[in-house]
């Protein structure tokens, strides 16, 4: 039996045990030699010098941004899409801790970790986008702009990133073996979840609210007084879809760490049902936006066709496919539809912030190779951080310190 041999095991250092996965350093280095790590290393090796270059020489030297097009993919992709796709944290935590859907307990931790890393790297992308990032504390602490939507977003994101960081602590404490800290962190779970859903509701919608100030710049098909509602509703579908995608990838990549007595397929089908309903409602709210603005004639233009691709191809169709796949328990189709929905959310955020913004300006924005490189690097860093944490901390599986119950 395992207990009888425990005393005979050679003692290992804390670093070997916790950081190098119990392997001697040389063996640990060898274990890193995988195609995935090589690709990630290559991207980071190219991307980090580009990030350094951006901070050394400024936005003008590294981006195609201008006075006409001050927002590029670092806002559209890294910030707006990143924050929407990180919504799985508050969506699943709310479902489990507030609505009592306990069967989804096993996916709370990976959802929150994905949310935390999503926000963290979204903020890093924002920092790269700001002309003077060192002035970031000014609007937060020194010169408050109460009526500004940007002020609310800044505070909400800072607070929610903190909340997500705190929600991520239980697996960290379990990893470190700090039982008292674990008990404290566990007691804070409900409070943090309530705080998280409040802050998310505020800033997910406010990110859309930013565009209420640009009625003449944003194409009429995308501009609507309902745009904060669009952003909030779509963030729920984005979060659910991202959890489906992440759980599928984690199931493949971290097979030995998965809690195998959880029927993941059943959970995925439940998430697909939720995503289907949310997308269905989202489609009709979008339709109301077009009707409210009386923009039907614009649908027969180039931008109109692209709008229809987004609304029919990335909202209505995934909703119907999710419904069919959930009804027929086709988990593989659900996963593909979730990836398709994630792509649709990215398309939507890029449409609102880049493609359909300044649509009638003579100067069009196309991101520079350095902007694209920085975005790819930030995503790679996020995935690498997720892998590093999941390989060490009890995120995907249960742990003996929590009595076999996830917190």
């Amino acid at each position, binding site marked *: 039996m395992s207990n009888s041999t425990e005393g005979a095991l050679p003692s290992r250092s804390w670093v070997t045990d916790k950081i190098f996965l119990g392997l001697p350093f040389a063996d640990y280095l060898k274990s890193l030699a995988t195609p995935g790590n090589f690709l990630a290393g290559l991207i980071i090796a190219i991307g980090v010098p580009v990030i350094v270059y951006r901070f050394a020489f400024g936005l003008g030297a590294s981006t195609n941004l201008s006075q006409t097009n001050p927002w590029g993919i670092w806002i559209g992709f890294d910030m707006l899409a990143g924050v929407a796709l990180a919504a799985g944290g508050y969506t699943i935590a709310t479902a489990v801790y507030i609505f009592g859907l306990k069967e989804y307990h096993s996916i709370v931790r990976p959802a929150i970790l994905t949310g935390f890393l999503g926000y963290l790297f979204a903020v890093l992308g924002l920092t790269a986008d700001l002309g003077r990032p060192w002035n970031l504390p000014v609007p937060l602490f020194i010169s408050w702009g109460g009526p500004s939507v940007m002020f609310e977003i800044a505070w909400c994101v800072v607070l929610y990133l903190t909340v997500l960081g705190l929600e991520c602590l239980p697996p960290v404490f379990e990893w470190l073996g700090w039982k008292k800290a674990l008990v404290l962190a566990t007691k804070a779970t409900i409070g943090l979840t309530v705080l998280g859903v409040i802050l998310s509701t505020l800033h997910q919608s406010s990110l859309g609210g930013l565009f209420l100030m640009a009625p003449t710049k944003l194409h009429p098909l995308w501009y609507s007084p309902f745009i904060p509602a669009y952003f909030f509703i779509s963030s729920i579908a984005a979060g659910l879809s991202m959890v489906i995608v992440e759980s599928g990838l984690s199931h493949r990549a971290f*097979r030995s760490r998965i809690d195998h007595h959880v029927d993941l397929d059943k959970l995925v089908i439940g998430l697909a049902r939720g995503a*289907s309903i949310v997308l269905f409602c989202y489609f009709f709210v979008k*339709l109301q936006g077009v009707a409210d603005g009386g923009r039907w004639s614009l649908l027969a233009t180039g931008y109109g066709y692209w709008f229809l691709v987004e609304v029919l191809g990335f909202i209505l169709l995934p909703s119907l496919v999710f419904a069919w796949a959930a009804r027929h328990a086709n988990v593989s189709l659900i996963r593909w539809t979730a990836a398709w929905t994630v792509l649709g959310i990215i398309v939507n955020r890029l449409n609102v912030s880049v493609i359909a913004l300044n649509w009638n300006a003579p100067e069009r924005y196309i991101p520079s190779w350095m902007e694209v490189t920085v975005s790819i690097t930030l995503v790679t860093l996020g995935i690498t951080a997720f892998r590093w944490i999941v390989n060490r901390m009890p995120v995907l599986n249960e742990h003996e310190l929590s009595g076999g119950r996830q917190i």
Partner: protein
Amino acid sequence: MIPHDILTLYSAKMIEYGIAILFLLLFIPFWKYVQGPSLATVPAHATVRQPAMAGTDWFPIPFDRLFHRGHAWARPDADGLVTVGLDGFAAKLVGPLASVGLPQIGAAVGQGERAWRLVADDGRAVDMLSPIDGTITEINGELLKTPEAAQADPYGRGWLFRLRPQRLRANSTSLLSGTTARRWMDEAVAGLQRTLSPELGALAQDGGVPVTGMARIIDPDRWDVLARTHLLTDDKEDANA
């Protein structure tokens, strides 16, 4: 005219009201469709109907299956073929699977003879016994991609293969069903509990569920030997046979 007056029936408002009513009319059937019971379509031979169950809380026994003491089940189908799978006990005994080694189509298998193997993610493999004699006519291809289905749903989509039986009536006399199978499963669980480590014992007492990989929890170093003992494929059993 007052713009956006709710009582002003100009065309834009009519369209908005129309969309709202259309949404409500469509949402109700859509909700019912999405939330309805699963319509999963599977071949008739691998029907995933949830059969009436009996038995221990840990391992219910479907009444429509014939059980071999090596923890495999057989179900005669309407087309004359027999579907074979592993039971809930075997599904939970071995830990996470890397693959299920299925026999080839056309291969002959015999009752009580090694017919397939469960390969765990640590590389160790455990053979299992065929419940009846026959020739393999079909294997469950889904298990090649998702072997964990054999554990997640052993009586449904985790079926292993179908075969053409050679002497089903004679084989059936050695198989267990109904209350006999239930008593046998109770004994198997009791036998396992006698070897339980304290932590797994606590699970049983608090009404918990058996975790996948029970053998690994009981004896991480020699779990495969323990599993073979329960699945009747250890060397000693072979010698006795």
